[in-house]
């Protein structure tokens, strides 16, 4: 039954779209403006001014920060998948005693505030001399984002009919082969999705990155952006150029793969 949409619907739609995109759009527009245009609050840049981007990329250690972020987030996403897939498979397919309690525990970790455990972690990392290394970031990220990966993937695995695997087991297929030959190919979209989500969360993470890094050795993009104004006070042109450079890949990927990401972010909600 298709009804014609009311005027109220379209007004609401436009309003919500504007709310969602304006802050980011305004950041993009500002990054293309010259200092004078920024202070005069011109809506559109007069020229396509790219100097802010050139300044950000050539002057500061921003490229190093981007490389750090790519490395840390990439390794985190890979490890999350590597240890998350077997765990999710166990939760989705196998019966065992402590299953429900352990699954609730996994869920609990996904929402447990990092600030409450950060001081002993800091002491520990400092005592082994790991502060300001990739290791100091990857370890807490893997611990924090794998539970989310497990939670989402468990939902995905449950949507795959178990009959195929049962036949394989009757044919004498080992569990390792079962996962690599049958489960993985079937759930590749799900795995790709959680990989992107884990990558995005690591890319955006701030608290651990702020405390566990002290120089461009391991400093990631969010920390660099938060400290930007300190060094280049009031240079909003460069500030926004840095913000856009750091977010545009993630934003484009999210928009292109929105269907998968949305199904991933809500997979647990539907199942439980």
């Amino acid at each position, binding site marked *: 039954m298709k009804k014609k949409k009311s005027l109220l619907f379209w007004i609401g739609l436009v309003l919500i779209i504007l709310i969602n995109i304006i802050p980011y759009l305004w950041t993009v527009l500002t990054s293309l403006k010259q200092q004078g245009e920024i202070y005069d609050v011109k809506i559109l840049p007069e020229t396509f001014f790219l100097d802010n981007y050139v300044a950000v990329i050539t002057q500061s250690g921003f490229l190093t920060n981007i490389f750090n972020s790519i490395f840390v987030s990439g390794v985190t996403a890979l490890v999350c998948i590597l240890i998350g897939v077997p765990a999710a498979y166990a939760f989705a397919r196998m019966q065992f005693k402590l299953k429900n309690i352990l699954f609730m525990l996994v869920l609990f970790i996904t*929402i447990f505030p990092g*600030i*409450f455990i950060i*001081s002993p972690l800091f002491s520990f990392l400092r005592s082994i001399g790991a502060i300001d290394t990739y290791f100091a970031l990857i*370890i807490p990220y893997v611990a924090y984002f794998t539970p989310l990966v497990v939670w989402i993937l468990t939902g995905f695995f449950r949507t795959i009919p178990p009959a195929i695997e049962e036949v394989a087991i009757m044919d004498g297929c080992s569990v390792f082969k079962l996962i690599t030959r049958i489960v993985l190919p079937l759930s590749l979209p799900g795995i790709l999705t959680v990989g992107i989500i884990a990558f995005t969360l690591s890319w955006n993470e701030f608290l651990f990155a702020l405390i566990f890094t002290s120089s461009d050795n391991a400093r990631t993009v969010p920390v660099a*952006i*938060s400290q930007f104004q300190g060094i280049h006070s009031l240079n909003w042109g460069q500030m926004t150029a840095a913000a856009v450079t750091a977010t545009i890949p993630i*934003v484009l990927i*999210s928009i292109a793969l929105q269907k998968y990401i949305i199904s991933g972010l809500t997979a647990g909600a539907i199942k439980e």
Partner: protein
Amino acid sequence: MKYKYLPYLLLVPVFTMIIVVVFIPLVTTIIYSFQSYRLTNTEEKANFIGLDNYVALFQDDRFISSLLTSLIYIAGSVIGMLILALITAQLANQAFKGRSLFRATILLPWAVAPVVAAQAWKFMFETDFGIINHILKSLGLIEKNIPWLVSSDHAMMSVILTNVWKTTPLLTLIIISGLQTISKELYESADIDGASPWKKYYHITLPLIRPFIAMGLIFTTLQTINVIDIIYVMTGGGPGEATEIFTLYNYKVFFQYLDFGLGGAMAVIGVTVIGILIYLYSRNMNKQMDT
């Protein structure tokens, strides 16, 4: 399929990480909370001082006020997120051309890093050349620029709005998935009875998505407390301590004042409060599922 040891074996890597990064530090934090342990005097060993840290906390006005500030921040955020998420989810659940594009715009604030969102809004709230004052002025709504982030009257509202923008998508998506579980027939029979759209929404939709709302709110509330990024970047907790929420103060006690004992006590109280919060939310949710 029944296995004896295999499932546990598959879970070992994940739980090793959880134990090393979350559980052991949590226990250590509890131990810290009973000690006098400052990072500034590393030579001095941490001494057991009983409940002194807790006593000191409850005599600390700044701690009490940070709890109240958190409550205001959470309450404001929850109200804002609920309104925005319910409307957005309702729109996104209709069939119309360009719906997937609309959903992509919902995801945009989720994809943007909190730090970037904070900088973007900070720039829009800027007193002299921020777009918000510019628009309000050209509409004739204000005569003088409002110092959004500089005055304690407006700072809280500004950080709440920013948090609502950044955090709502998660709630919206969970509510959409709730809306998709409602069968169309319920609405059709209500149509035959001649129910108005508002009545249908209030009597059919809302009760059915309530568990999803409750769950979405647990997630977004915890994210609101957890992500200090927004306030850290926009106001640093100021002006004065107007926007200093509990977790931000805890961060400062740990890493600016380097007092791991006092900070530990704050963290223990925080974990307890959050535990109670989750318990109340989930009990409420179960009740609604039963009825």
